[in-house]
């Protein structure tokens, strides 16, 4: 177990370093550089100013040297300095990460819970109207562009009904603390988390349904019936548990996608997470920040994958802790 984790961590670090190196060059391929962007925003440029900025950012050095400096930093867990925001990258990401995690994990939980629930129902009533209705309902959320769902949600729940706030992480200026603050954050969280979660829900619904139907046909379900177990127990203990294995795998893959996929949700709901931070960093060519977000995102994905694998191994005794 420990060796398994250690091995995965070592492999993960190798992948991360590859990501750093490749993205380092990738980002620099894009036209424009941070000096240009900042000069542009300052509304005036002259040679001295741009040159000064480039020097400040270390962009005047040859590319391999820049890479060397950056990688050296990453290896010592230093993600560099965002010159545009004048702060260490780690600090900037650290400020945003909790919001993103809150959003994505909630969305993840929602999608998983609803998906499994609906999937179970659909499988239970496979072939009936209920099954079709659930499938179509789930697919509608899947098929609508996320920014559209988001806007509809805002129009309905914020503008028309005035139930939920349309933007932000908390009520600004309310200065709430304790449970009141938690409630306030929760209210702000509902819409973005639902928007993001409903999209992924469709996948889990279908996956659970298919998997349940598959497991239902297996021999051990017959054994369980031959024991005289009640249907509910069979469904829950024998069918669902086995059916969840592929769902767990898929969920592991998604958890990573969710983080990066939150860009749009965070934009529309003004959620102060790292998806948005990444997008701004890209537009501003804030190289260090962008790379930093990538590294952190990838690290999160790797961590989530590891967790899924561990969970999988816990749930499925057949898998040994070997490679």
């Amino acid at each position, binding site marked *: 177990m420990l060796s398994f984790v250690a091995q995965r961590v070592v492999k993960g670090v190798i992948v991360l370093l590859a990501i750093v190196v490749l993205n380092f060059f990738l980002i620099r391929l*894009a*036209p424009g550089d941070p000096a240009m962007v900042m000069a542009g925003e300052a509304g005036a440029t002259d040679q001295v100013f*741009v040159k000064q900025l480039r020097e400040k950012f270390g962009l005047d050095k040859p590319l391999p040297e820049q890479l060397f400096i950056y990688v050296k930093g990453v290896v010592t867990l230093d993600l560099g300095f965002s010159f545009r925001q*004048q702060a260490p990258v780690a600090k900037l990401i650290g400020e945003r990460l909790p919001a993103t995690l809150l959003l994505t994990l909630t969305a993840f939980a929602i999608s998983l819970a609803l998906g499994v629930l609906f999937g179970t129902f659909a499988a239970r009533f496979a072939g009936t109207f209920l099954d079709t209705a659930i499938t179509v309902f789930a697919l509608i959320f899947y098929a609508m562009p996320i920014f559209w769902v988001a806007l509809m949600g805002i129009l309905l729940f*914020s503008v028309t009904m005035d139930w939920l706030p*349309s933007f932000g992480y908390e009520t600004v200026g309310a200065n709430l603390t304790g449970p009141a603050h938690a409630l306030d954050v929760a209210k702000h969280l509902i819409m973005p988390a639902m928007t993001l979660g409903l999209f992924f829900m469709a996948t889990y619904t279908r996956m659970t349904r298919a998997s349940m139907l598959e497991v239902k046909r297996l021999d051990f379900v017959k054994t369980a019936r031959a024991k005289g177990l009640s249907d509910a127990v069979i469904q829950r203990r024998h069918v669902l548990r086995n059916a969840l294995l592929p769902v767990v795998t898929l969920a592991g893959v998604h958890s990573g996608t969710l983080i990066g996929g939150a860009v749009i949700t965070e934009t529309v709901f003004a959620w102060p997470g790292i998806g*948005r931070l990444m997008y701004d960093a890209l537009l501003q060519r804030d190289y260090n920040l962008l790379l930093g977000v990538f590294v952190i995102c990838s690290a999160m994905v790797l961590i989530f994958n590891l967790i899924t694998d561990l969970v999988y191994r816990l749930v499925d005794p057949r898998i040994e802790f070997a490679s």
Partner: protein
Amino acid sequence: QAPKTGGAINAVIQPEPPGLMLAQIQNGPTQMVSGNIFEGLLRYSPKLEPQPELAESWSVSEDAKTYTFKLKKGVTWHDGKPFTAADVLFSIEMLKQTHARARNNLAQVEKVEAPDDYTVVFTLKQPFGPFLGIFEVGSMPMVPKHLYEGTDWKTNPYNNAPVGTGPFMFKEWQKGSFIRLVKNPNYHEKGKPYLDEIYWQVIPDAAARAVAYETGKVDVLPGGSVENFDVPRLSKLKDTCVTGAGWEFFSPLAWLWLNNRQGPLADKRVRQAIMYAIDRDFAKDVIWNGLGKVATGPSASTIKFYTDDVKKYPYDPAKAKALLKEAGYKGEKIRLLPLAYGETWQRWGEAVKQNLQDVGMTIETIATDVAGGNQKIAEWDYDIAFTYLYQYGDPALGVGRNYVSSAIAKGQMFNNVEGYSNPEIDKLFADGAVATPDSKRKEIYEKAQKILVEDVPVAWMLELQFPTIMRCKVKNLITTGIGVNDGFKDAWLDK
């Protein structure tokens, strides 16, 4: 009505500023927020007349080369230290290194001296007509010497919690959410500011910003923070007031860079054809919702020495076609770079493309983000490109830079990137900057405008207007030619 004190204002800030240290970062949002924290020596009325701020009074010598400023007494920094002439000298030194525009503006200054704690004397190398127009807070913010001297400015901790002399003090910044400013109780203008707090809310999506206003979560939408298509709808909401004021100093003017160096656009007739081909009234009425004004030439009508006595280019596709034919244009592909500043600008790019295609030009739109676009323009790798620039009140500050041949420099933006070169124009702008008195300057600049409009180095489109939308209970928000960027010291809430 007498101002009432108290209350908080929620305003939108878009995009989130990278930092608030105005001396080092000069992008729009930084100016908007930091205009409350920092102050300049002067302010400017909507007519762009100088008004006292940190300088109580000023005088100009006979030869127009010496400017003497008397500083206001009893002004303190937010940390309680007094503001003196030493701070002014220090700020000027710092800005010369960190503030590109300030460095240009101060190019004519030979020396700055402080005979006493409350007097600052600028001596110029030669007379410089617009000199009194460079002391606004965004152009020349005052920095506390005692906190910055001898430190590494880039990493000075006060960059993240700026200290100024302004009516509001920095309180907190939740990255990605909001910036909170609170009243400066020791502000040097007694009784001001009236507000207790300002929250600048970060909402990246334009539609969400409109919703935030509608649902009462924000009170002020500064110019440009919602799409123009939304302006009429929001204006009609209950208790909503709209003003176009507050942009006189900047006078944003939109035009198309035309690359004069190569291809069909090197021909003046093709450039004129473009002026005729584009339906600028449509752009104003449909895309900008009737806001703004069709530009007549390189100067906005709000800035000094403007004249409309120039050649006119009404929408006339037939004439455009004729000119193109005359110039021998044969459908060569022309690349168009729209401005990546949101939907309005995207739509405008599409409309212009359609206009140009209608007169027989072959247009390919090149999509870029802002950084990529800037790079392409600076490297002269474009044919037509959208832009809009501030004019800073005086042709010597905001106009000449785009047309004189000395401002042709590859790799840089906002200068003469179109590559227009005309010795006559070079001379007129050189003379105009140093000429005295104003009547003489006027003569020179009017002549320059006539020549430019005939030559069409760039295709002027619209004088833009960015209406500020706010609840009517917000009073006196905009009192100067710099508008929202000048701080909320006069604003109050009618509860």
